[in-house]
């Protein structure tokens, strides 16, 4: 039996210890926001946080997170309570197909926690493990800068209750 904390709750599982964390989270704990992309740690679609660090969970055996803290996209923010990085993603119109974006956001959140004022180069270095086939990279970069600024100033970047425009 392997126990760990998942989005703040203690959970346990009896799956074989070499099962990749991604599949445990998706199929046993039914949190499907984290995606399967490559199975080799090459694309970042499966990115979660383990003890605050961005990790590729398609190659991380579940035993490796025993007694640790795992956070998924579902633990970062909810549709009615968006994280500032999620708000920035909407403000900059980042997602297209959206499949890689949970992983992109998890990487970006980890980046900003470690480096609150990243340069373009810092962002390139940190985010280059996350592939986006729709090519949303320049918007991701802008969104990360916006989220960094907003974190300092406390500005809300997107509030679903206050969608602007459309004056009749």
């Amino acid at each position: 039996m392997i126990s760990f904390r998942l989005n703040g709750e203690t959970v346990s599982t009896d799956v074989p210890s070499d099962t990749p964390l991604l599949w445990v989270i998706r199929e046993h704990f039914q949190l499907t926001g984290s995606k399967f992309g490559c199975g080799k740690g090459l694309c970042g679609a499966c990115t979660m946080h383990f003890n605050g660090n961005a990790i590729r969970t398609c190659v991380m055996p579940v035993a490796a997170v025993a007694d640790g803290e795992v956070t998924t996209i579902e633990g970062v923010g909810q549709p009615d309570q968006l994280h500032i990085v999620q708000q920035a993603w909407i403000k900059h119109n980042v997602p297209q197909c959206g499949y890689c974006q949970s992983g992109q956001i998890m990487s970006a959140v980890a980046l900003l926690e470690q480096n609150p004022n990243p340069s373009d180069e810092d962002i390139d270095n940190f985010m280059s493990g996350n592939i986006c086939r729709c090519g949303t990279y320049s918007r991701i970069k802008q969104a990360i800068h916006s989220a960094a600024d907003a974190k300092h100033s406390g500005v809300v970047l997107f509030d679903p209750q206050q969608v602007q425009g459309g004056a009749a």
Partner: protein
Amino acid sequence: MSRQQQEHVSNPSRRNFLKFAGITGGGLVLGVSLNGCSSSTPLPYSSKDAWQPDAFLQMTSDGQVKFFLPQAEMGQGVTHGLTTLVAEELNMPPSDIDVTVAGVHKDYDVPGAGMQVTGGSASMRTRYEGVRQSAAKMRSLIVQAAAQQWNLPAADLVLLDGKVSHGDRVAEVSEFVATAVALPIPEQVTLKDEKDFRWIGKSNQPRVDAIAKVTGTAEFGIDVEIPNLKRAALLRCPVIGGSVKSFNSNGAEKALGVHQVLSIYNGVAVLADHYWQAKKALESIQVEWDYPETLSAHSSADIYQAMGEALSEDGENAFEQGDVAQAFSQADKTLSARYQAPFLAHATMEPMNCVVHLQGDRAEVWAPTQAPGLAQQIASEHSGLDRDNIQVHTPFLGGGFGRRAFHDFVAETTAIAKATGVPVQLVWSREDDMQNDYYRPAAMAEFEAGVDDSGLLNSWRVKRSGPNIMPYMIDEALGMLLPEAVPQSISEWLSKRGYGVFDSWQIDPASVEGLHEDYKVANKRVDHVTVDPGLRCGYWRSVGHSFSGFFVESFMDEVALKTSQDPLEFRLRHMDDNPRLKNVLQLAAKQAGWGQPKPGRFLGLAAVKSFESYVAEVAEISVENNQIKVHKVTCAVDCGRVVNPDIVRTQMESGINYGLTATLFGDITIENGAVKESNFNDYPILRMSEAPEIDVILVDSKEPPTGVGEPGLPPIAPAVANAVFAATGQRLRSLPLKLA
């Protein structure tokens, strides 16, 4: 046997290539739907408790508007785009409309296409009028119903944000639904005047799918969960088209969670409680394969050699204008060059997957598909159930790019579900996905141009060689195109011989599109020679333009420079008949500072019309340590009326970055019929550190809207290649670009 087949057979170097592929028809085939469900077939998702004047819109008794989106969302923004049209005519915010992807029904066929498909950058172009009409009718009926209930002239009432008002009197639309149901539906209504637009042409709303996509709550095919669902993984032949001769499970069926090990038409499947159990159990299984003869005989080197040799054959004529031979003889100068482009994988971020639940004489299929009617047909062929008894649900697609117009993953899942009798989800690994694609066809082309003494082109001759997409599409779609009365055995037989059925159509338009159209030249000729090693091919973002754009725009650059003309000026001199393309080229060149590159930077430009949209791009690059670095791309696009400006920008960015992967890295190679590339380590995708800054200029136009999912792609490879020539003097005529 046709004349062309005989020629092919007589060419000894081409003995093992498929002989049929050049003689199949074009996109025309898709327009020949002979049946499909009749208009009296009930609409999927219809409800007794809701008012539904037509296939697209429903209003529940509490006034909620539901829009049945007739297109698939694969990132291109069609959910927001078409919902914007509904919102505009119903005069309410797009975010207040409940959007469901439509099921399969004839009423959702793309106008003029004869089937329900998302492709060809056609959604906005083909739906703009119809979706607006549909919503405008609903608006008109609600207002008429209110006028009737209030005994006032309809013209005095205002419908705004889900409420009808007359002066201070205001009521929710729900109060009028019951009356509206009984009113006759008008044939045609007046659309909203553009001066009153609140949403069309404005970027004042986030995409309606944005919140779901930043919170992990958007449901993709891989996320579908139904009761008692079992997971499957499938071991396939290393060469596509092979089948199982025999296999030894080595006890795989005894592994934890595994229910069954079984062979289906193309491989050995493991059915388990969980995906990882199934995937892991596959490792112990040994299979003896029956390899497909033709494809197994080929490797990349001999395929390209055969394509090169084919360029000296006459081929089939695809287009002719004027007298090319005479014009060449009169030319002041003639130039020629040969270009090449490889097979490419789509590599959607979401690998292929599908859920099939067979329930007696009915079935439900959850398929991330660009063509749900085809998914239904394929599921019908592999389950033996009637098409009309199969309900197809289309979740979000984690990328499409043409890959999901083909439904081998639906076929496999249905076969496993039929053999096991349980609801099944099949998930492909990345390796499965990379090695079992419908690839962008490789292509080679020989160009010849004649230039007169004023430096103008007087003649243009192109011959393209390579495989065609159409035989593979026919194999996929024939069952749907034939009347259901044709027994399956016959349609299967025809499917394998689709080339014979469509013998009269000589050229696949997708093989030659874009090779001559954009520039004014009096004498032109395009010919085609099919060389098909049997590797299945499919529609890949921008289809034929993905290679022809590179070929034509590289060659234009060569001709300009070899006749001592500026590449921009030379193009403009040949664009009098193509004012919209000319305009975007001028806009992009001006914005990018054409002629004045920054120190150490080099510019290249290209312009391509594709799918009725006009796009020009200027690439700003540098070359350091023999590496090409693309710093910035300036793009100008004319897609007619811009419905969602920011979605048009994102699609240009997307097409450019997708195209840059192909420009710099993309190369699928074959060894004894097997695709060698397997994952993102050996099929690299452009990453953030390699992605350029992109500046997009939108042309303000009142022409009818056209699509943007694909047209951003074709100009990028030639723009970069032309910049590389400016930087290094190396003319790179083969993709991906590799410096000497």
